[in-house]
């Protein structure tokens, strides 16, 4: 049984076809990367998995549970670390963490213990009594990852988790993510850092204009897609996943980095 099985997912927003029939299977215990330029459909796909976007067609199964018909069972197995810092603006972060544990069924004592462990692990314990507005950008990112781990999920979905994080912290997070993946957790990661995908992911899918255009191990993709054509842009490292990305999407990663964070109202 696959951890996540996506079949024929389509989604349109008015006249924009965000997903045009996506098929994807992510195996249990896999560290899977989803790469794509801005507006390719990465966040829409992740949101569909989490039940925050309702697909127009297709099905998604999480450990065999249909995310629409058996949403409750599916949601128990997953946790999302979104791009946006979507925590209560004025709640102390310790409370945010403790409530998160409770949402997934942990009693108060266990939630308190887990919150303390994770806040300490991510260097946020000293800030436990302040709200998100008093945290730096890097601290907010760490909080998001810590919160997503509160539920001890079997499947962890990370949407650009290291965006805007300094190099040292990024490498520290990579080591942490590798470790929790080795412990058996399935990880689905979207990133615009090619190096991140190369370092962490066993397999990578490249999504472009709402379709998966390639899906395989990074080395296989490199051998398949870097021989055929010369890179269409200069300053692209040859023989890397970045060259694969450029050849398949026609965009450089820097262009793909731009995203908008706006309240959805």
């Amino acid at each position: 049984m696959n951890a996540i099985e996506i079949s024929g997912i389509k989604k349109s927003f008015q006249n924009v076809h965000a997903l045009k029939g996506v098929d994807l299977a992510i195996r249990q215990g896999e560290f899977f990367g989803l790469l794509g330029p801005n507006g390719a459909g990465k966040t829409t796909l992740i949101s569909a998995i989490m039940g925050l976007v309702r697909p127009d067609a297709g099905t998604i199964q999480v450990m065999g549970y249909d995310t629409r018909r058996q949403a409750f069972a599916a949601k128990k197995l997953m946790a999302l670390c979104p791009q946006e810092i979507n925590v209560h603006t004025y709640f102390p972060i310790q409370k945010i963490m403790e409530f998160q544990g409770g949402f997934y069924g942990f009693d108060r004592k266990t939630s308190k213990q887990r919150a303390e462990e994770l806040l300490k692990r991510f260097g946020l314990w000293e800030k436990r009594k302040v709200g998100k507005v008093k945290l730096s950008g890097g601290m907010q990112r760490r909080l998001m990852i810590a919160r997503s781990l509160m539920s001890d999920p079997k499947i962890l979905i990370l949407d650009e988790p290291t965006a805007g994080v300094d190099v040292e912290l990024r490498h520290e997070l990579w080591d942490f993510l590798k470790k929790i993946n080795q412990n058996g957790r399935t990880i689905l990661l979207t990133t615009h850092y090619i190096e991140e995908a190369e370092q962490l992911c066993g397999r990578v899918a490249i999504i472009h204009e709402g379709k998966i255009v390639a899906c395989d191990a990074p080395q296989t993709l490199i051998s398949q897609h870097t021989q055929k054509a010369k890179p269409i842009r200069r300053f692209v490292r040859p023989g890397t996943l970045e060259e694969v990305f450029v050849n398949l999407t026609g965009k450089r990663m820097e262009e793909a980095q731009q995203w908008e964070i706006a309240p959805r109202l």
Partner: protein
Amino acid sequence: MGNSTPFVTLLRQEWFRFTRLWKQTIFPPIVTTVLFILIFGFSLGDRIREIHGLSYILFIIPGLAAMGAMMNAHTNCSFALYMSRFDQSIDNMLAAPLRSIELVTAFLWGGIARGMLVGLVTLAVSLLLLKQPPYHLGWTLFFLITQTVFFGCWGIVGALRAKTWDNLATAQNFIITPLIYLGGVFYSVDLLPGIWRTISSFNPLLYMIDGTRYGVLGVHDLSLLTSAGLSAGMALLMFALCVILFQKGYRLVR
């Protein structure tokens, strides 16, 4: 891991949301209502003749308590949900294994708790000042609860529909406040001339306020059963509407 833990956590979260800011959420509405009583009751009340054999100050207390409960239930629910949409923390709750009915009940619980606190403290302070025990505590609680449920749900619907903070304020300023003021807080519907009395009878809040007055003072203008039935019926209908909107993901799921 117990099955009720996620729901209980939601309730705790909504309690925490308004009690941590009690100086802004609980204290001011109580002060405002007590000021209303002092100004309209003690300073102007002597110039108004008795209504249903009661002094004017006693007559307006139940309506003012009901008004405080309604307004605060509405404000709490609409603000909590709209803020959650604004900072997108609602997405985290929607992604968690929580049912629509649990989410609605939790948001509503915040509104009911805040509204009841304001309503009951206002009543307690006022009745203590006037040395008047409540006539029927059961009916008082029944009407306060149904009012806070109805207005809390109204706040939830408003927060789902709103696209700006302005939208929320508009509903409160131009719809809810006039309906409450025209719902017999300061006067008996018996004193209105024929046509205005007929028009007032279409204001559902009239029945809620009249019922509260019966619970507190034992006097009423309208049929108690009609008031009770309408209040409970409207509260249940609004609650069902909220649950349906959440289940459909109205303005929540894209």
